[in-house]
């Protein structure tokens, strides 16, 4: 029987949640026995090769590309999981949510104390994904099946949740494994 497939991505995140996944240490050997990785920075597969059992999404949506990738994940993953505080509540990128986008760009490219930008240009190439008006938690963009909060969620949290889902058990994590920091 073919192994179930898992896909992962980092949207507006810092890759810390992916690092935490690698923190499962030697259990990663068990994980590759249980699953194949599809689209993921872990194996550098860029596009989905088929339907996946589980999608792990790190980061919220800060730009249009994040939204497209997230919608693609929803389409290709039976179970979609928000991994980490950025995916579940926006996280540190959402600190900009009380400031207008224009003010953010001005601060980053024109007014900030360390800015060197003699031409006063705010990058606007069509290759660069457009920023959204604010940062959106994943569940405000697509339906999310499970949330694993934490900054990052601990390796044990990710491991326990994955193993439960892959062995058809309910995801009921012990007290120590649901944390917001």
């Amino acid at each position, binding site marked *: 029987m073919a192994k179930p497939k898992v896909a992962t991505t980092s949207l507006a995140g810092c890759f810390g949640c992916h690092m935490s996944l690698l923190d499962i240490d030697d259990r990663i050997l068990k994980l590759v026995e249980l699953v194949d990785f599809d689209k993921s920075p872990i194996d550098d597969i860029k596009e989905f090769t088929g339907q996946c059992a589980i999608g792990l999404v790190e980061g919220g949506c800060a730009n249009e590309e994040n939204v497209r990738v997230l919608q693609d994940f929803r389409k290709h993953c039976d179970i979609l999981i928000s991994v980490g505080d950025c995916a579940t509540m926006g996280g*540190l990128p959402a600190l900009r949510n009380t400031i207008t986008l224009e003010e953010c760009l001005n601060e980053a490219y024109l007014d900030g104390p360390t800015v060197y930008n003699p031409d006063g240009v705010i990058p606007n190439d069509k290759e660069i994904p457009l920023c959204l008006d604010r940062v959106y938690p994943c569940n405000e963009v697509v339906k999310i099946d499970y949330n694993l909060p934490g*900054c990052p969620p601990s390796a044990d949290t990710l491991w326990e949740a994955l193993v439960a889902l892959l062995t058809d058990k309910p995801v009921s994590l012990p007290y120590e494994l*649901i944390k917001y*920091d």
Partner: protein
Amino acid sequence: MSDKITFTIDGVEVKAAKGQTILQAADEAGIYIPRLCNMSGLIPYGSCRVCTVIVNGRPQSACTQPAAEGMIVENETEELLTHRKNIVDMLFVEGNHYCMSCEKSGNCELQALAYRFGIAAPKYPYMFPNRSVDATHPDIFIDRNRCILCARCVRASRDLDGKGVFEFVGRGPNKSIAVNANARLKDTNLDITDKAVDVCPVGAIIKKRVGFAVPIGQRKYDTKPIGSEIEAQNK
């Protein structure tokens, strides 16, 4: 005649002294009723409704309702858990709670309630309100992003410190914690040794230069749920 009152919480017989609230009697009996605005030593305020119990079929706040003979109190029901979760969810989304960078994390009562209730993420959309920080005082700052309007600081400053440094201004979604009619914190007579500085259940009133003094894993609620210290008396 005994001056003790007898009533039940979830079918368990509990004794209370005259004048005790349901919550005080429950605490002494080792039964935890979740609470947020209530704190022993402060006059009950009854604002957060996390402590809601069903008394003889009707919802009441356990922190303000005096115990009475023969009362039938329900506490740990599915319905009340849902109600309490909803309140905690709303408190999270109507403020800005970045626990990952909050000095109170691990010792925060709001966060601890969410952990105890097993909340992985609030069910409501985040509001991302625009709130201010007052860091003018040399030893203390207020971060209104995290304030849950529990009035503990208001009560402690007024009733324990005899100062009245804190008060609320505004109404509804615009209600916020203020100091002496919108002055800055440094213009008040708030002192680092005031009781009001220690009572905030969340990270809205913070002492400067403490930071993240206690490592993760050793903080108050890292391994033991809030309320377990009350329940331990029962074991």
